[in-house]
């Protein structure tokens, strides 16, 4: 029996090690998720239309300036907010610190378009703030200067406020788990907190910072709600307009291609930044860092610095929504409960599917990086592609499959299957997987980096491979990574709008769809309740997520 085995290996031994079923499955799953994007990109190769030169002549330059400017602005904004608060929470002690540690995540529950809607309403010329200023000082128009909220700068501010938690989450973890020895060495060498921050903490946290900013930038690039509400022309609104306004798939696909290139550049930059430093703090036995105790004025300053992002990114908009809802005094729609259940069920299903696929891909990546990496990286690009582009790609893909199934069924059974996939919840779940694979993969990968390769090697020499490694070693050790990934995907799906809108089945509403329809119809009081429900439903997973920080993690390394 053993002889036979050896002989078989004699023919294919070398390949068996790298190209096993797992790596193929992982690559295949990634490929499936990229397929909708490819369907769209093939559109770019279609016949040239005279709309494209027109776009180049008129609006393209503006799209580039706005898109790149907002992306950089959001990267900078989220970096400042995220790193600043992460440092305070991880390295300093002040009253309310433990509360802020989780409260700082809350803005993630607020969809960007809702925040933009609220701030646009509050801060525009006719809004309560400017009205109060005019009434208070007796000013009229042109007597005073007030920053225009519906502007690229306003978009940067709003997006930074709701997206900084990505940076905060990742960098805070990096600060908290970084080697206490390193920080303490810095302190013993007589370095003040600022110097340590600049010369030690930031360089060590750079991979986390890069990952967080990349997530924020990708979300910014695919944003349609904020740009639309603020009247800013970006690649994404341009795609929207060329495609759905003008029906020119070719021009839209070209814009999408340019956007995809930008996305790939962002991903490349992120990988570069990550690669520069290879330091695994878990390799030495890290203890919690001893924090700086802040007193007096400094502790007040720290409280203000943490309260501002939470207040502006979460508390204030949520309060305004509550106020709108109460002021309108509208009765709650009886269908509302059903919508809530739809949304929760959808988010739950999408979370299981997405995290499952991400786990598979990341596992394949671990088994055979050389083969799986290119697939995995491109599959993650779906996160930065506007949901509506993904949705239309999926429509195309599903109809291809459906038509194939239908004609096969006609040939075999004499009756068609019609549209089996299109307009089903399954397709919606698939769309979420395409969109949010990157989010869950990022969380799982950073968790994976903490599992030393020697554990895999140990398991293999004990004869356990590869399913055993996944189920008996990785899954138990990845629990916190899986929880993070699941919480993030859940919240993202709750907020997702364009793909849901296009792909959903008949008579199927979600909170985001309802909030959007009401807001688009400018019935803000009716939009407030579903928007609040999105925020509320997102809070639960986020609070679970924040609990991670308070629980001591199992060290993936035995003491030496």
């Amino acid at each position: 029996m053993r002889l036979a085995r050896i002989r078989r290996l004699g023919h294919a031994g070398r390949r068996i090690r790298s190209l096993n079923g797992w790596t193929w499955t992982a690559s295949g799953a990634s490929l499936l998720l990229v397929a909708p994007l490819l369907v769209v990109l093939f559109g770019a190769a279609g016949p040239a239309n005279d709309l494209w030169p027109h776009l180049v002549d008129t609006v393209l330059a503006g799209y580039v300036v706005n898109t790149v400017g907002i992306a950089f602005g959001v990267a900078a904004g989220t970096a400042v907010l995220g790193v600043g608060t992460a440092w305070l929470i991880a390295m300093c002690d002040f009253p309310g610190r433990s509360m802020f540690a989780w409260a700082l995540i809350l803005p993630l529950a607020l969809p960007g378009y809702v925040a933009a809607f609220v701030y646009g309403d509050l801060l525009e010329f006719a809004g309560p703030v400017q009205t109060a200023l005019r009434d208070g000082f007796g000013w009229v128009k042109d007597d005073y200067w007030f920053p225009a909220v519906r502007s690229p700068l306003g978009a940067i501010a709003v997006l930074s406020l709701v997206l900084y938690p990505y940076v905060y989450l990742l960098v805070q973890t990096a600060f908290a788990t970084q080697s206490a020895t390193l920080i303490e060495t810095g302190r013993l060498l007589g370095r003040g907190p600022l110097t340590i921050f600049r010369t030690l903490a930031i360089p060590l946290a750079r991979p986390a910072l890069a990952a967080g900013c990349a997530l924020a930038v990708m979300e910014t690039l695919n944003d349609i709600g904020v740009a639309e509400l603020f009247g800013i022309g970006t690649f994404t609104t341009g795609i929207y307009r060329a495609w759905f306004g003008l029906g020119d798939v070719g021009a839209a696909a070209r814009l999408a291609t340019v956007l995809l290139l930008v996305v790939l550049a962002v991903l490349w930059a992120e990988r570069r930044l990550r690669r520069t430093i290879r330091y695994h703090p878990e390799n030495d036995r890290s203890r919690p860092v001893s924090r700086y105790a802040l007193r007096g004025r400094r502790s007040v300053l720290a409280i203000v610095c943490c309260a501002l992002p939470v207040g502006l990114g979460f508390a204030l908009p949520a309060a305004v929504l509550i106020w709108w809802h109460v002021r309108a005094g509208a009765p709650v729609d009886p269908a509302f409960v059903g919508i809530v259940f739809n949304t929760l069920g959808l988010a739950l299903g999408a979370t299981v599917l997405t995290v499952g696929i991400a786990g598979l891909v990341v596992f394949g990546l671990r088994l055979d990086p050389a083969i799986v990496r290119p697939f995995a990286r491109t599959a993650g690009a779906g996160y930065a592609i506007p949901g509506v582009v993904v949705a239309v790609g999926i429509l195309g893909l599903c109809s291809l499959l459906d038509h194939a199934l239908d004609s096969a069924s006609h040939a075999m059974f004499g009756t068609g299957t019609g549209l089996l996939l299109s307009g089903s919840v399954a397709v919606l779940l698939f769309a979420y997987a395409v969109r949010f694979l990157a989010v869950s993969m990022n969380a799982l990968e950073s968790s994976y980096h903490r599992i030393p390769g020697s554990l895999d090697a140990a398991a293999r020499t004990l004869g356990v491979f590869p399913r055993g490694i996944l189920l008996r070693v990785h899954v138990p050790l990845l629990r916190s990574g899986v929880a993070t990934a699941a919480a993030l995907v859940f919240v993202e799906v709750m907020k997702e709008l364009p793909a849901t809108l296009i792909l959903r089945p008949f008579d199927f509403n979600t909170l985001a769809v309802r909030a959007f329809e009401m807001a688009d119809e400018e019935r803000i009081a009716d939009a407030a309740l579903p928007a609040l429900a999105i925020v509320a439903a997102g809070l639960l997973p986020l609070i679970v997520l924040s609990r991670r920080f308070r629980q001591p993690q199992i060290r993936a390394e035995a003491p030496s």
Partner: protein
Amino acid sequence: MTSGTRRGLEVRGLSVRSQTDDRNLIADVFLDARHGEVLWIVGPSGAGKTTLLRAIAGIEHIHGGSIVVDGRVLANSAVEVPPEERRVGMVFQNAALFPHLNAADNVAFGLNGGARLARTSRAQELLERVELAGVADRLPHTLSGGEAQRVALARALATDPDVMLLDEPFSGLDPQLRTDLAAATCRVLRESGTVAVLVGHNPEDAMRFADRISVMQGGTVLQLGTPHEIYAHPANAFCAGILGHVNRFPVQVHRGRVETPFGPVEAPGLADGSAAELLIREEGLLLGEGTLASVGSVRLLGALAVVEIRPSGEEMIFHARVPADAAPAPGSEVGIRLDPARAFVFPVGR
């Protein structure tokens, strides 16, 4: 299951290349080890010791050569058996215990099939073998370094491997614990009848516990032999220096011998006038009748003392290891004699 020929581990002409550049990490390595024997690989960091172990385990792809265990080819130019089918156990430098499993579950990890009860009792039995019966329920992070290593050993033994590889299992432990652990480990390994290949830094441990020693440097095996063979007949200057402390000086060969302040040392086969290197073991300089030398510092090491001596009329400083109670006083004059069996001359450039 295995065929009757228990020929142990045979490594022939093995080479492994770095995946990032095309550098050879190890090249043309020959090695064999028998069942029930502990083969100890010594050498400086970067010598390729760990790479060799990983190649035998199958975690590292090989570039050339072959690895055969009991006549079964694990790897050669055509075959590469994956690690999980090699029946090769490995204990890692940091123990690599699964942090979410308690000691007993770690040990039982590789046990497939059978009732849970049977696996548990087998794990308990193995823990007893490594004298850790009491820690079965404890999680790895509550174990001491030595305990963790012994659990790792028990875990690797559980699958009854044909070959056991141990990668610096005792590094980072304090000396007393290290010696005890090394003794216990080698005892368990010999009892198990497996082929044991161990990588370690400490030459004293190697001499004390190994059946045979393999000296590695720069990716190749320089010498393979019993501790005595390597100590008494080192193949080159490096092998001479690795098992113990030596005095080394550049010298010139005159008529098949080298002159030293303590008398001539034979240098057979070396050309007249060629440059050579003289190595004298510190314990090869004996107090007694012989060349007069002045004593510099005297450092006590316990039973032994290291004495700094300068033969009269010479600039060179030598170190001698002498019994502590016979150590001379600093500043005194003593007679020094050379034990010719502990002095070696090697040509330069080897």
